C-alpha cells in the first residue's frame, strides 16, 4: 500500500487528530485535547517532480522544507524564504515541513517581495471528509473553480489537510536581498505583528522584546505581546491571534462544512 493510503487509513481510525509535521510550530497552536491522537505527516514525504523551466515543484506535504530547498538549489530554484541558519527561524518563516509551512502561512523576511506561502501554492491534493480531493492546477496561472487550496493556507490543519502540493518556485537569480533586521536569536514561538506603514513606526517604538523587524512588509517579531495597533493583526503562542477583521461566523461555518466530525484539532 502507498504511504498516503496508510496515512489516510491511520487518520480515519482516530476520531480526533492533531497533525504534526516537524513540530517546529507546535507551540503556536493550542495544546491538543487529551483524547486526540497526534499523527505525523512525515510518512508522506518526498519530492515528486521538479521542473525549473515551469518554475514548479510537486512535493508530498511531509517533506522537510530544508530538504526541498537543497534539492531545488541544484536546479537553480528555491522557495523564496531566507535561510534559517543565517537569519533565524522567525525571519525564515519558521519552516518545518512543506505542509506545515502552508498550514501556518506565516510571514518571512522576504514577504514584501515574494508574498507568503499561499501565493506560491498552485495545486493541492487534500484530505477532505475522508476522501482525497484536488483543487487548483499544476500551472502558474489558473482560474478554474474556487481557490480552496488558497483558502486552506493559514487554517493550521483544522479544515482539510494537505497531502501533496505543487508550488511555484523562484529562480535563485531572481531572489532579492532582505530588508529585514534581526536583533537577536530567540526561541519559537514568538509574537508576530503586521500593520499599516503609517502605524508601523509607532508600534515599533512601543514594542518590547523585539527579535526582528521588516519595514518593507511592516512586520515585527518579538518575545512579548506587542501593543495592539489600530489596524493589522497579531499571531502569538498557543493559538492567540488578533485581527482587525476576523470573521468568526463564516470561519465557524467553514469548519462545520469542511470538518463536520471535528476530527482536526
Amino acid at each position, binding site marked *: 500500500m502507498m504511504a498516503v493510503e496508510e496515512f489516510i487509513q491511520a487518520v480515519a481510525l482516530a476520531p480526533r487528530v492533531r497533525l504534526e509535521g516537524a513540530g517546529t510550530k507546535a507551540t503556536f497552536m493550542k495544546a491538543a485535547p487529551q483524547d486526540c491522537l497526534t499523527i505525523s505527516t512525515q510518512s508522506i514525504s518526498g519530492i515528486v517532480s521538479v521542473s525549473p523551466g515551469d518554475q514548479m515543484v510537486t512535493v508530498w506535504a511531509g517533506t522537510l522544507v530544508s530538504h526541498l530547498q537543497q534539492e531545488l538549489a541544484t536546479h537553480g530554484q528555491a522557495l523564496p524564504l531566507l535561510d534559517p541558519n543565517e537569519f533565524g527561524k522567525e525571519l525564515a518563516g519558521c519552516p518545518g515541513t512543506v505542509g506545515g509551512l502552508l498550514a501556518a502561512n506565516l510571514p518571512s523576511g522576504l514577504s514584501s517581495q515574494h508574498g507568503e506561502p499561499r501565493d506560491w501554492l498552485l495545486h493541492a491534493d487534500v484530505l477532505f471528509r475522508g476522501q482525497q480531493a484536488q483543487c487548483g492546477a499544476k500551472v502558474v496561472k489558473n482560474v478554474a473553480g474556487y481557490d480552496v487550496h488558497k483558502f486552506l493556507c493559514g487554517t493550521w490543519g483544522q479544515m482539510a489537510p494537505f497531502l501533496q502540493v505543487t508550488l511555484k518556485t523562484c529562480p535563485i537569480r531572481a531572489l532579492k536581498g532582505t530588508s529585514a533586521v534581526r536583533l537577536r536569536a530567540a526561541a519559537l514561538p514568538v509574537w508576530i505583528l*503586521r500593520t499599516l506603514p503609517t502605524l508601523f513606526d509607532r508600534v515599533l517604538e512601543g514594542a518590547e522584546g523585539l527579535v526582528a523587524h521588516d519595514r518593507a512588509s511592516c512586520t515585527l517579531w518579538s518575545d512579548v505581546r506587542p501593543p495592539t495597533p489600530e489596524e493589522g493583526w497579531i499571531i502569538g503562542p498557543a493559538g492567540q491571534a488578533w485581527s482587525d477583521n*476576523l470573521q468568526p461566523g463564516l470561519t465557524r461555518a467553514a469548519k462545520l462544512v469542511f470538518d463536520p466530525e471535528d476530527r482536526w484539532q
Partner: protein
Amino acid sequence: MVAGLSEVLSPSQVLAGSATHRTYDCDAYTVDRSAPTCVVLPESTEEVQAIVRWCNESSVPFTPRGAGTGLSGGAMPALGGVVVSTKKMSRILEVDLPNRCLLAQAGAVNIRLSQAAAPAGLHFAPDPSSQTVSTLGGNINENSGGPHTLKYGVTAQHVLQATMVGCSGEIVVLGSRVANGPESSLLSLIVGSEGTLGIVTEAWVRLTPLPKHVATALVAFPDSSSATQAVVAILEEGVVPAALEMMDFNIMQALRTAFGLEFPEEAGALLLVECDGEEPVNDELDSVLAVCRASGAIDVRVAQDEEERAKLWTARKKGIGAMGRLAPTIVTHDGVIPRTRLPEMLAYVYEKASEIGVGVANLFHAGDGNLHPCFYFDDRVPGTIEKVVAAGEEILRKCLELGGSVTGEHGIGVEKAGVWGHSLSPADRDLQMAVRDVFGVSGLCNPCKVLPDQKGCVEHVKRWRGAAT
C-alpha cells in the same frame, strides 16, 4: 418585477424592454444568450442589499454584471431574472497613498484606479487587455490577469479587502487592509468566484510602485516553435521578465493588413519582452536577448525611448482588433499548460484548425503558458461554428492532458462548465461545492455558472445553443 424593484430603488434605476433584453442577454462570449426580465442600477452597498433581499423574497434569480467584457458567459442571466449592473457604482472612495492602497466601488473601471494613483508613482498592477472598460468587480470575480501578470501576479495578489452582499442579502467584509492575517482566507474564495457567491460592492486594493526603469524589445523568430523554445530557455536562465508575450505568423499578417505594421519578412513569430525594476534593467534584457539569439532569433528591436516602447506594444495590443480584418467571426479560446509544453501544444492547435478548415492565430501570455488560440472564420457557412466549438473543447482537453487547466483568465462561466465539470472526480466536485455551503449559496445567485446544479440548467444549455445558431 419591474414594479416591485421600482419600489426598492427609484424607477430610473430599473431598466426593461426589448433593447435592454438585447443588450444584456450575453457578455463578450456571444455564443450563448439568455435575456433578463430587467436590469437594475444600484448606487450603494445598501441598495444592492435591498435588491438581493427582494430577489430572495420573490424567488427571482439575479446575476451581477460589471462591464460585460467577460469571455465565458459569466454575466449572462442564465435563468433570466434580474441583472444587477454596477454601472452606477464607479466611484473611487478613498486613495490612501501613504499606505499604498485604494478603496473603490465595484463598478470602477480598472484603468481609473491606476490613473488615480499615478501622480504618486503608483499603479494597480493587474492589467487585463480590457482595462479601459472592465471593472474592479469583474476583475476580482474573474481573478483577471494581463501581460504583466508574469512578474506582478494576478488580481488575487492585489486585493486586500472586499465588501460583499451575500446570496441572502447579508453584508460581509472579507480580508483586511493589512494582508495575510491569522484567519483562513475567505477572500481567496471570493476572488475568482465569478459572481456565484454574492455581489462585491467595494474593495480595497493594493497600489504598486511604477517601475523606475523599463526596457522593452520585440524579437523576431523564424517560426513559433523556436519562439516558444526561447520562452522556456529565458525562464530556465533564471530571469523573470515583467512581460513575455507571443504573436504568431497569422497575427503578424493581420497586423500588416489592418494597420500596415512592418515586420521582418522571414519572421514566423514575435516575442515581446519587457524587463522592469527599481534599478536599471539593461543587463537583464541583455541576458534575455542573448538567450533569444541562442534560440534562433533573427531580428531584435529594442525600444530607445517611451515612444518606441509604445510602438512595440502596438503589435501586442492591436493584435486582436486586427483579427477582425481576416474573417467575419473570431472566437478566442483560453487554456493553460506548463510552459515547457508550449511547442507541442501550439502544434496541436494548428493541426486542429487545419483539420476543420478554419484559420487560427495565436497571441498570448507565453511566459505564463496561457494560450489564446483565436479561430477566424465565416459563421454564415453552415456547421462552422459547431466545428469551432468542438475544436475548442478538444484543445481544452489537450491542455488537461498536458497537465494544465481549461482556463487561465477567462473563467468557467457557462462556456466551460461542461468540459471542466467532467474533469473533476466526485470528491473534487464535493470540495468545490463545500465553498457554496460555507457562504450559504441559495441557487438564485448567478445560477448555472461554474458548477451548474440548479434545476433548469440542463434545458437551458440546449436553449442557449439554440439561440446561438
